């Protein structure tokens, strides 16, 4: 039996047994949802429906319904795409990278973080899809044999790399998530009383038995998938950044982009996990599993990646001057002092300044402060993408072309709509799926559970 140092904080609080863990995690699935769940769910569905309406309107009328113009021809669509993909980076990072590092604290948060990843990547993938205008031609992005003189997609283009990166990332994350869910669905199946849920969870659990060999395979699959998903996480946002970095637009043509985008993605992803879990633990009574210590660990990741992002902003600024290229220099001067100064300084405040508060242990361990600061990061990271995209485009090489971007109600509707769809999916997940990885939590109970640690200490 593995024992842990007594001074290391327990990861499972209270007097828990294996059975109690099952009871606590299955309670939201087996019980009835409370009033708050219905209220939040209704709001999310209404916002989602509004978004779906705007999406259908876009598809019907074309992207002329958006605020794009000949100068700013890429705006909220790609901002939202990068924002959502970035948010989608935390889940797989938590489950894959932290698995390789044998970090036990990931076990309480990986399931919901992965669910968040999947939903966020779905929202992200929506934007390039609808931006195509003719979404029914979306399959043209794949290298399929065709009748156009066997014309192939361009494998030299980062936009195509993105197609491969996003689809690989989405499908591998989905498989990783589901493989972890199978044993937990089996737990719910074996406890189910109502015939309908018994049948549903029987199908979902794929007939999981939990015999010794199956568990060996399970562990091996988790480990190898983590090994595969780790470089995948880093590759996805590197490739997203190359959509910009390989172009010749001042402000985009930057070699620092891949690591800077990856750090930003982890930063925003952890902030979103923090936002969601601080609510989830309260609503689903999971305070014993998602503890203050878990929040603190996440805040440490946020302050570190936030600082990396801050250093990247400053190096970018320095290099724009040091390069001696006047266009490059102007692009950055214009970001900070031009008509979009408010976006630039919102980004700087939310991403670089406020997260520095997490250096203080009191702030790091305060749930309210964590929640507020995580919202700041979510906002700041949206502005980061907006700043990179719109401020680099709105004043191009010909001053007679200079303009501004004004979002229409469709732009706003689609953006808010994706938030609505995201929350609808997450709320459904929290109602019908086990939100914590049951089997993994049970495997750390004896080494990291509060009661067992005390017992070991007294021995």
């Amino acid at each position, binding site marked *: 039996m593995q024992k842990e140092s007594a001074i290391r904080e327990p990861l499972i609080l209270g007097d828990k047994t294996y059975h109690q863990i099952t009871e606590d995690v299955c309670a939201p699935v087996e019980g009835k949802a409370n009033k708050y769940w219905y209220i939040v769910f209704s709001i999310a569905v209404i916002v989602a429906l509004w978004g779906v309406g705007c999406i259908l309107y876009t598809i019907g009328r074309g992207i002329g319904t958006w605020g794009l113009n000949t100068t700013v021809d890429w705006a909220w669509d790609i901002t939202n795409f990068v924002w959502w993909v970035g948010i989608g980076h935390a889940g797989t990072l938590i489950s894959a990278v932290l698995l390789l590092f044998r970090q036990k604290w990931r076990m309480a948060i990986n399931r919901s973080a992965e669910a968040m990843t999947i939903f966020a990547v779905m929202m992200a993938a929506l934007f390039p899809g609808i931006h195509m205008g003719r979404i029914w031609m979306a399959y043209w992005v794949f290298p399929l044999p065709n009748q156009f003189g066997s014309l192939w997609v361009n494998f030299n283009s980062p936009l195509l790399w993105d197609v491969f990166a996003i689809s690989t990332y989405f499908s591998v994350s989905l498989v990783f998530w589901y493989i972890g869910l199978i044993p937990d669905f089996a737990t719910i199946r074996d406890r189910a009383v109502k015939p309908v849920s018994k049948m549903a969870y029987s199908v979902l659990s794929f007939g999981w038995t939990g015999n010794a060999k199956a568990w060996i395979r399970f562990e091996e699959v988790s480990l190898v998938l983590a090994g595969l998903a780790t470089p995948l996480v880093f*590759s996805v946002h590197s490739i997203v950044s190359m959509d910009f970095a390989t172009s010749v637009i001042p402000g985009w043509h930057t070699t620092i982009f891949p690591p800077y985008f990856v750090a930003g993605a982890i930063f925003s992803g952890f902030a979103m996990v923090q936002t969601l879990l601080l609510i989830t633990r309260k609503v689903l009574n999971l305070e014993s599993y998602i503890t203050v210590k878990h929040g603190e660990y996440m805040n440490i990741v946020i302050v570190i990646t936030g600082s990396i992002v801050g250093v990247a902003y400053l190096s970018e600024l320095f290099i724009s001057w040091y390069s001696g290229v006047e266009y490059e220099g102007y692009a950055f001067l214009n970001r900070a002092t031009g008509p979009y100064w408010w976006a630039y300084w919102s980004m700087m405040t939310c991403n670089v300044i406020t997260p520095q508060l997490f250096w203080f242990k009191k702030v790091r361990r305060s749930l309210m402060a964590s929640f507020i600061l995580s919202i700041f990061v979510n906002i700041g990271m949206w502005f980061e993408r907006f700043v990179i995209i719109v401020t680099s485009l709105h004043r191009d090489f010909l001053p007679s072309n200079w303009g501004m971007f004004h979002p229409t109600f469709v732009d706003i509707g689609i953006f808010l709509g994706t938030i609505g769809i995201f929350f609808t999916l997450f709320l459904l997940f929290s109602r019908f799926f086990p939100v914590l990885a049951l089997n993994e939590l049970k495997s750390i109970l004896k080494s990291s559970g509060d009661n067992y640690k005390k017992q070991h200490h007294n021995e």
Partner: protein
Amino acid sequence: MSKAIYALYDDDEIMVDGAKTILSKNVRIKDVYSPFPIHGLEIVLGIKWTRLAINAFLYGITALTLALLGMSYFMIQDWPMNIGGKPSFDLYQNLPAFIPITFEFTVLCAAHGMAITYLIRNWTLPGVKARNPHPRTTDDHFAIEIDLSENQGVSAEDIKTILQETKPVEIFEK
């Protein structure tokens, strides 16, 4: 189907100790059902480690080859395109631009190939019926399965006596 005797435990350590005792009395254990992976159990039971990782490697290497072959066919043989003057006339020169997709495709096939092999090898597929002997083996109980046909030399009564010594919470036949 032959008859089997099951011993149900409420703690993983008691179960592992029980398994050691049972094996030391020359009774063969058919399988163990548990709600979570128990490290070291495979050594006690003498189960060989899975070869799924080798599978993943093979799927990955196949995908890597396919991606490179595919891209050199599409971009170099079949329809070479001059895009911004980037070299497009042999694989070596064009290779840097092919690396991202080669990597992604390798991960895609290795991960999915392995996941599919895992599901089939485990026989956990939609519509398959669960075979765990007791519903609580997915909650907080651990079951040792002893197949009578594998233990011809020992009577069912003797097995039960041995099992009784290992402090199970329940012994049942199925």
